[in-house]
C-alpha cells in the first residue's frame, strides 16, 4: 500500500476529528498558538504544544489558519517595504542625476566646501540655537529589544545635544498608550512602583522616547519591545 503527503495530511484532519470532541479547557490559549508561530517560549513547551495541536482538531484548524494569516501578513509587510524602498530610491536619485565620475565627484566636493563655508559663517545661527530635529536620532540603551526586565525596570537612552527635556511613553501589546512620564531632563527614568504593579509579567510592552527642543521641535526614538520577568 502506498500513501502520499497530502493524503496523510487529509487523514490526520479527518481522523482526529471524531476521536476528540472539542475539549477546549485543556487547549492552549490563542496567544500560545500565535507565540508558537512567532517563536516564543521554551523548546520543551513548544514540543508539548505541537504534540497537542497535532492531535486536537480544533487547535490544528486554528493553527493552520494562523499560519496562513501570518503568510499573508508577511507578504503585506514585504510589499509595503518594497514599495517604500522604490519610492525612496526614486526620490533620492532623480532621472537627471549624473553618473558618478571623477569630474562630478570633484565638482560635488567643491560645491560641498562652498556650501559648508556659507552655512558655517554666513547662515548659521548662534551655536546654542536649535533649528530643527532633522538628522538627529535618539539611541535607546536599555532595556534591549525584547528584553525581559526585572520588576523595577530602568529606561535609559543616549542624551541628545540641545534637547530641553524628554518624555518617555509606554504602550501595551496592542500599541495603545499605557503610560506617559512627565518632562524629565535626565536621560534615564525608573518606572513608578504602582505602575509596574499594573503591568502583567510576560506580556509585551513597547517604549518610546521623545526629545523636545526649543521652539517646539521634537524627535522620536524608534519603538522598542520589552516585557517584565515572570
Amino acid at each position: 500500500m502506498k500513501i502520499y503527503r497530502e493524503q496523510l495530511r487529509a487523514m490526520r484532519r479527518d481522523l482526529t476529528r471524531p476521536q476528540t470532541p472539542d475539549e477546549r479547557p485543556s487547549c492552549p490559549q490563542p496567544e500560545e498558538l500565535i507565540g508558537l508561530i512567532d517563536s516564543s517560549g521554551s523548546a520543551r513547551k513548544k514540543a508539548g504544544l505541537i504534540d497537542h495541536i497535532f492531535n486536537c482538531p480544533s487547535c490544528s484548524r486554528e493553527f493552520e489558519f494562523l499560519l496562513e494569516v501570518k503568510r499573508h501578513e508577511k507578504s503585506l509587510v514585504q510589499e509595503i517595504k518594497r514599495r517604500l524602498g522604490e519610492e525612496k530610491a526614486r526620490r533620492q536619485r532623480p532621472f537627471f542625476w549624473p553618473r558618478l565620475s571623477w569630474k562630478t565627484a570633484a565638482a560635488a566636493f567643491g560645491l560641498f566646501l562652498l556650501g559648508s563655508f556659507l552655512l558655517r559663517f554666513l547662515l548659521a545661527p548662534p551655536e546654542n540655537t536649535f533649528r530643527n530635529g532633522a538628522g538627529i536620532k535618539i539611541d535607546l540603551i536599555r532595556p534591549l529589544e525584547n528584553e525581559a526586565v526585572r520588576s523595577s525596570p530602568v529606561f535609559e537612552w543616549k542624551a541628545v545635544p540641545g534637547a530641553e527635556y524628554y518624555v518617555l511613553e509606554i504602550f501595551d501589546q496592542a500599541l495603545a498608550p499605557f503610560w506617559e512620564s512627565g518632562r524629565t531632563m535626565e536621560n534615564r527614568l525608573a518606572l513608578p512602583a504602582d505602575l509596574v504593579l499594573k503591568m502583567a509579567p510576560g506580556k509585551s510592552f513597547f517604549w518610546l522616547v521623545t526629545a523636545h527642543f526649543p521652539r517646539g521641535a521634537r524627535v522620536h526614538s524608534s519603538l522598542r519591545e520589552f516585557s517584565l520577568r515572570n
Partner: protein
Amino acid sequence: MSRDRERSEEFERLLEEFSYSIRRSLEKFGLERRGIDPEDVLQEIRLRLWKKFASEKKIRSRASYISVVVNSVLTDCLRRARRTEKVLQHEKEKCLQSAEQPAGCFFSDERTWRIVAEAIDSLIESRRVVVKMYFLNANLEEIAASLGWSLDKTRNLLYRGLSDIRLKLKERGIEYEDLP
C-alpha cells in the same frame, strides 16, 4: 498633497488585498461557522493598521507592528470563537455520538492513520516536532522560525524524521512517498 493621496490610496489597496486573503482563510478553515464574522475581523485589522500606519514615515519605521496589531485582533477573534464553541459543545457531542463515520473514513484509513501516528510519536523529540509541524502544513522556513533553529538544521531533522517514518511504515507494509 496629491502624493499623500496617492500613497493613501495605495495603502488602502494593499490592505484590501490583505483583507481578501484573510477572508479566504477564515472561510477555508470554517471559522465563520464558529461565530467569527470575517467582516468584523477585517474591519478591526484595517482600522487599527490604518490608525498606526497612516503616514509613510510611520510605515517605514514600524512595519513590524503590523504583526502586533494582527496578533491582537486574531487573539480576540479566536477567543470569541471558543466561547461560541463552548455554547455549542453539548449539541456537538450529541451529534458526534449519533453521527456516522465521516466520508472517506474507512476502517483501513483508521488503521493506517493509527500506524502513522505511532510511527511519528516514536521519533526522537527534535525530529518529531519538525515532522508534526510539517504535517500541520507549515513549510521549512516557518518551522525553522517557530523553533528558533537554522534552516539547515530544520531541513536535516525533517529529512531524517521522514526517512525514519518511511522505514517504520515499510516494516508495517505501508510505503510513504513525500509527494503531494
